[in-house]
């Protein structure tokens, strides 16, 4: 059986609509051979959870330029409640340093700041996807 490529959901929650970053990152992941599910901005948390379940994703990427990262702890809580707590959540965009600890504490697996390289993002998302899948499929 050929291994199916990592599947990543790239989305934006909250009110912000700047999507240049999320479009670029989606293209990077796709170019790296990953299967990318991409949505427009302004997704509601329940809709993201539903999509994560239906699409059987390995990693959830949230892009935030304004302050929508402040909703990520709520999103992670909603994923856990839906039994999707194993899906690593990564955040890319503008996250002020003093707000990083709260995101880490809530369970955010990685934060990519402006200037993060393609290589770094692809490698880390790929690694998290492999870990997540291994966890789901049990120790092989």
């Amino acid at each position: 059986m050929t291994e199916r490529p990592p599947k990543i959901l790239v989305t934006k929650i909250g009110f912000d609509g700047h999507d240049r970053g999320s479009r670029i990152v989606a293209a990077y992941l796709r170019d790296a051979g990953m299967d990318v599910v991409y949505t427009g901005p302004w997704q509601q948390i329940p809709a993201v959870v539903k999509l994560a379940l239906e699409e059987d994703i390995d990693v959830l990427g949230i892009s935030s330029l304004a302050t929508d990262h402040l909703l990520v702890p709520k999103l992670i809580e909603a994923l856990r409640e839906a039994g999707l707590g194993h899906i690593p959540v990564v955040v890319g965009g503008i996250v002020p340093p003093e707000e990083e600890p709260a995101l880490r504490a809530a369970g955010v697996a990685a934060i990519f700041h402006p200037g993060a390289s393609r290589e770094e993002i692809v490698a880390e998302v790929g690694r998290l996807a492999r870990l997540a899948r291994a966890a789901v499929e049990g120790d092989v």
Partner: protein
Amino acid sequence: MAEPVQLPLPGFDQARARWRRDYEAQIGTDRVVRNRSGIEVKPIYTPDDWDGSRYMEELGFPGAPPFTRGIYPTMHRGRTWTQRQLIGLGTPEDFNLRIRKIIAAGATGLSLIPCNSVYRGYDVDECPIELLGTCGTTVNSVDDMDRCLEGVDLGRISTALNDPSPFTLLALLLVVAEKRGVPWSSITGTSNQSDYLSHFVANHMFFRLALPGARRVLLDHIEFALEKIPGWNPLSVVGQHMQQGGATPAEAMGLTLSTAIQYATDLIEGRGHAPDKVLPKFTFFFDISISFFEEVAKFRAGRRIWQRIARERFGAKDPRSWRFKFHGQTSGVDLTRQQPLNNIARATVQAMAGIFGGLQSMHVDAYDEVLSVPTEKAAKIAIATQNILREEAHLTDVIDPLGGSYYVETLTNEMEAKIEAVIAKIDAAGGMYRACETGLVQTMLGESALAFQEKVESGEEKIVGVNAYREEGDAVDVPALDRPAREAMEAQIARLVRYKEARDQAATRRALDGLARAANSTSDNVFGAVVEAARAGATHGEICATLRRELGFGDVLVVP
């Protein structure tokens, strides 16, 4: 007086051949340098490239066609640009405190940036409290607007509202003016986010109504302003969104002019207005990147093309219709999180490009905008940067000081050709409305954004502190971040709830029903009905909800 230059100049060819030999001997294999718009940039420019023989056709004098050197005879020597810093944070009281300080620091115009919840069309009592006031001011009611502008003389200071369709902030402002006895005829300012097409394709922040509804309400809003608020600029065509969304400078200018062509066509052909009635109301808003000469050339070329469009395409006769009035904002895309104080240097270069480009008003980004919503200290430096460029560097002493540079004139002509090609492409696609509807523009932006990022990744485009000159441990110099206090937001929500309880419910209901009827009629002015609703006590969220129901709310066209 010197005689005009006669070509060929004695000795020119030999000197050029010698230079080329020496240059090639020293540089080895020369690399091809291209600017962001893809134009090849040579190591030197001479009268071979631009000899001034077409001076009158290409440049002329400021204040007269083709306006390459500026739209007014005096330009910055007469009146410098309006220093208009974007401000918006927290509650109306927070905003009011901040603008009073900024006015005292020398700002000559106000701008009001509402909270993202406002952009999405909601009131504070229907949103997650975590997000309220973090990116702008929570302003939902006439009461909120009144507190935002307390102590501000509305008849004297110009106000730019970041206020997309259906323009509720302007409606609130007009009602506040009425209550204070300030006549609408003395209100000046700009509806800064009226360009729904740029929102639809590039900056979705401000996109509320579905495309057909947005088109209708914009035209109604412009007609209302023409008739009732003569000092108001109801239309600002936003090239900034295009460039921030990924467009190259030439593409951004081309797409913006195509957008303006669409709106002008809708007003002139669609609604039957005379070109000289509507075109003087057109204003533009651009990004100023750090690609210095390219930006200067972009603005000079843009002026030249717009007057040609106004005169030749639309047959405008009034010189006010030909003037390309624009606001510039230094580009946040060029700012870095690494070594953030370097952003002051970047913003200074960008601001210089805007000044030499001949802008009418400017916002200089605060150095910490890449870290958070700007802090007060950083915002003051951005104002000081402009004061220094004007007072100490004397950049305003000479009009269009780069005019006549072999390079800048050649580049202006080359940018003009690139921009014209974009306009032709959009024309061929059936105009800007159609090109946005089909996703053509979104694809252009996505491709250019990715192409630029690829250059950064490969190191072809170097960014200090990011992919070059990195320093270990150059930990972010963290500005003090002011997130609004939760209690203040809770109080703001409670205040809005009380406002809704205390108003005349029947009158509010009637006005909102009237708004729904206006949206469904073909003859009523929808914006007029928005003003009526605000006057009766309806809030921003209620007005948006009504139009969301009647005209359909817009979603983003996702282009992979």
